[in-house]
């Protein structure tokens, strides 16, 4: 096969070569991922997966044949939706694309399905609200207790700390970021 340096030179110099090269990678790596996910799903037969995807079995077969299908984003979104996975399409350096390909193994490739994706299904909003609520309550309780102490010692009451709510919000934000 061709030499590495001449290949790189050609890819650097010629846009059409780059397009063809990327197309060749996608033509194999998308079918390989679809096949791997289908075999790991509860629908290892093409016909079963086709039914769930609302597609013809012949179409699934085409998707799994390298180079046969011209995938649109809509098709990929439908497949991802059927698998219960997300889909990431992003522009990357050539080196990153190849690194991903080199590390890709159909035998080990799997993606956590949405129902098992605890990072996604964990109720973050609710959790944040409770963190926020706890923070505000803690700040106000501390203020109230301070005032009670002052009352006992006959020291003038203090107004609520102006930053109490702000601090709670920042605290909740930091925790959210850390999560």
């Amino acid at each position, binding site marked *: 096969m061709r030499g590495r340096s001449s290949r790189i030179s050609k890819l650097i110099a010629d846009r059409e070569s780059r397009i063809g090269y990327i197309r060749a*990678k996608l033509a194999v*790596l998308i079918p390989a991922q679809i096949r791997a996910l289908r075999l790991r799903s509860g629908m290892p037969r093409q016909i079963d997966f086709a039914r769930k995807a609302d597609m013809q079995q012949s179409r699934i077969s085409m998707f*799994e044949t390298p180079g*046969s299908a011209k995938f649109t984003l809509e098709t990929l979104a439908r497949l991802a939706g059927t698998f219960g996975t997300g889909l990431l399409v992003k522009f990357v350096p050539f080196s990153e694309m190849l690194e991903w390909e080199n590390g890709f193994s*159909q035998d080990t490739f799997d993606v956590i399905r949405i129902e098992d994706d605890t990072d996604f299904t964990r109720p973050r909003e609710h959790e944040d609200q409770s963190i926020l609520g706890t923070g505000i309550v803690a700040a106000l309780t501390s203020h109230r207790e301070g005032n009670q102490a002052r009352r006992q010692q006959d020291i003038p009451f203090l107004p609520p700390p102006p930053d109490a709510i702000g601090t709670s919000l920042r605290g909740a934000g930091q925790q959210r970021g850390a999560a």
Partner: protein
Amino acid sequence: MKNHKKVISFPSGHWRYFDYVPGARNEIEDWYRGLSEDAQDLLASLLKTNQKVDSPINWVGLRFLKGKYKEERLWELRFFADNRQQRLIGTFGNNRKEAIFLIGCYHKEGDYHPRNCLDTALRLAKAAKKGGNTCERKVEQDL
């Protein structure tokens, strides 16, 4: 080491590909050279991906041939390139994780081209089983 069970260890690792070369010319290489650069890239990527898959049943693009071809465990790697359904027909070698390519062809309107390629592949597979010239096809491990 009496009563020691014999442990047969298989080499784990990637598949190795070989072109079967019955005569002076490597016809797989001729077929490969006849493909466009894009198609060559696609095939390289396909071989690279399948090389890492333990069971060939799970190879992407693979289909086992039926009928009389089944006896010799003939299969075809299918991919679409250069506006054709390309086919690379092969069989398995005598050693584990060895695949032997026998003939490259394409499929159009229900027929293989060249028309006799399946029978040729069958004949080559039988000859390859008896031992014959093979030439290892290195997979491009990209840049």
